[in-house]
């Protein structure tokens, strides 16, 4: 009977431990926060550093063309309202996801582009992770390259940031791992010799060598969720946007690198 009691007790402790786990996870002090760039090999850094060799710049060129293309029932282009993106979009990506009053919640940059299409161009949404939306997002985000991440301070957003943080701290999937287990507690280690990194969101959309294309932060998040063998969230799901929000708050002050190159 002693053993049974011990098992029951330890089970309770474990149950408690799983609940307590988020509270004991260590967030990275601001002074130690590092871009994924700093973990890369010199060759991959060189590919990002030079605009004539960075394949992500092709997305910028294509995005600029799309910015100026008229479309939708309104037959308007982005430029018809926002004019020169170099001026109007400067700093915008550094504060996304941002609060949308009509929806009463956060929207990321891709969703903002599609909201703009719906509200002002009377155009269909561009599908997630397809070329056009990635190119437009990359072009908009590139206008903030080098600028520090400055999360949207709207008070109504804060509960969503907290939800994103809870998700970051929550163990899930068959491997029973939370984002924090690797990206707060073990970011200086290696997973099968690949750098774990801090999972910073400051280069998206990124040109990922593994993808051989541009891809969004949500694609990268979905990779990790697949990796821990958890049910995935659909592109645009509120949980993914909340995670994006929390990641941006975690990267406050870090310069935007879009289009970053990552292995």
């Amino acid at each position, binding site marked *: 009977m002693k053993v049974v009691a011990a098992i029951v007790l330890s089970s309770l402790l474990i149950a408690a431990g799983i609940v307590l786990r988020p509270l004991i996870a260590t967030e990275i002090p601001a002074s130690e926060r590092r871009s994924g760039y700093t973990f890369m090999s010199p060759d991959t850094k060189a590919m990002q550093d030079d*605009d*004539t*060799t960075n*394949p992500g*710049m*092709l997305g910028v*060129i*294509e995005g600029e*063309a799309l910015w100026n293309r008229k479309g939708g029932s309104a037959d308007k282009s982005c430029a018809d309202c926002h004019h020169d993106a170099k001026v109007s979009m400067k700093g915008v990506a550094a504060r996304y996801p941002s609060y949308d009053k009509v929806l009463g919640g956060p929207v990321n940059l891709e969703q903002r582009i599609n909201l703009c299409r719906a509200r002002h161009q009377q155009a269909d949404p561009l599908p997630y992770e397809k*070329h056009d939306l990635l190119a437009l997002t990359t072009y908009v985000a590139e206008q903030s390259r080098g600028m520090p991440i400055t999360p949207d301070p709207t008070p109504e957003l804060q509960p969503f940031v907290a939800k994103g943080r809870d998700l970051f701290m929550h163990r899930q999937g068959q491997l029973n791992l939370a984002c924090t287990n690797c990206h707060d507690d073990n970011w200086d280690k290696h997973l099968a010799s690949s750098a774990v990194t801090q999972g910073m969101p400051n280069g998206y959309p990124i040109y990922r060598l593994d993808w*051989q*294309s541009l891809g969004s932060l949500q694609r990268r998040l979905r990779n990790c969720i697949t990796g821990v063998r958890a049910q995935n969230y659909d592109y645009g799901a509120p949980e993914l946007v909340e995670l994006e929000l929390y990641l941006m708050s975690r990267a406050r002050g870090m310069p935007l690198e879009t289009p970053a190159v990552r292995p």
Partner: protein
Amino acid sequence: MTAALINVPKKARNGDIIEIKTLTSHVMETGYRHTPRGEVIPRDIITSFTCRFEGDEIFHADFFPATAANPFLSFFTTATKSGKFDFEWIGDNGFSQTASASITVE
């Protein structure tokens, strides 16, 4: 839509050896990959690149499935006179793309 990013100096002095860099958007599908259902994804690559200066070929390259997506190339030429570089990419499924860039040689 495909894009090309070409880097040629706008100006050079006679006799300068200049670097030309090109980056082209293309998936470079190898023909060796399969869908989750086991079907082969057909090959779709750029197979050849040619650079001409004032109509004369100055550089040519053959690409293969082993060429990385969004192919990058860098090569050199000697600047001798002002003129126009023409770039041409040809590939599977009738793929064809051209671009050009001018240089002023002083």
